[in-house]
C-alpha cells in the first residue's frame, strides 16, 4: 500500500487563498448594492421632498388639525 503522503502544512493558507478573495468580493458587492438600492434613493427622496417644502404652510395645516398645545386652530 503505497499511498502518497497527504498535505501536512499550509492548509489554512490554502483555504484563505481561495476564500478571502471571494469574501472580499461578496462584501464589496453587498456594500455597493446597498448603496445604490437604499442610500441613493433615500437621499433623492429627501432632496425631492425639501425642494417643494413650505414650512409655514405645513405648520398651518398642522395647526388647523389641532395637534399643537401652544397655538390653537384659527377661529377659536
Amino acid at each position, binding site marked *: 500500500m503505497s499511498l502518497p503522503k497527504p498535505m501536512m502544512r499550509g492548509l489554512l493558507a490554502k483555504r484563505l487563498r481561495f476564500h478571502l478573495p471571494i469574501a472580499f468580493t461578496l462584501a464589496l458587492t453587498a456594500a455597493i448594492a446597498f448603496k445604490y438600492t437604499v442610500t441613493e434613493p433615500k437621499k433623492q427622496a*429627501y432632496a425631492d421632498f425639501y425642494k417643494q417644502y413650505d414650512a409655514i404652510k405645513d405648520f398651518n*395645516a*398642522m395647526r388647523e*388639525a*389641532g*395637534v399643537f398645545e401652544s397655538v390653537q386652530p384659527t377661529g377659536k
Partner: protein
Amino acid sequence: MLRLTTGRVGCLLARRATAALTTSSTRMASKEVSESVDMSQPMYWDRVDIPLPDKPYKDVLTDADKSLKQKEKGPWGQLTKEEKIALYRLTFCKTYPEMKQQTAEWKTVIGGIFFFLGFTGIVIWWQSVYVYPPRPRTFDDEWKSQQLKRMLDMKINPIQGISAKWDYEKGQWK
C-alpha cells in the same frame, strides 16, 4: 455518555437481566437490590462511533469457548465459518447492521412533542382566562383610528414613511 438509559444497556445487562428479571417469588427479599454496573471497570459498549470497545463482550468463557480461543491462535484458514461467527460473537454483542437497526423511537418523540405542545396550549388558554388583565382601551378600533388620524395630522414620517403614503388633498391612501 455516562447515562445508562435502559434501552441502551440491552446487550450490557443481557447476562444480568436474565437474573434480574426472575420473578420475585423465586428470589429472596434481601436480593431485590437493583443490579448496578460498576463504571470504574472497562465497559463494553455497542456504539457506532466506537468500533473497538474497552473490553470484549464475553470475558467469562466456558471451556468450549476457551478451546475455541486456543484454536484462534493458529492459522485462521482452519476455522470453519460457524467457528468464526462464534468467535465474533464472543468479542462483540451486536454487528453493525444490528446496531444501526431503525427503532420506532421517532414515534415516541413526535408523540411527546405533540403532547407537550398540547399541554402548553392548555396552560396558555388557562392564562388568558384567569391571569390576563382587562384589555387596554388603546386596542379598540375607534381608538386606533383616532391615533392614526393624529399621526397623519402631525405628519409623522412625511418623506418615506406613513404620511408619505397618505394623499392630503384627497383624504385617502395613495
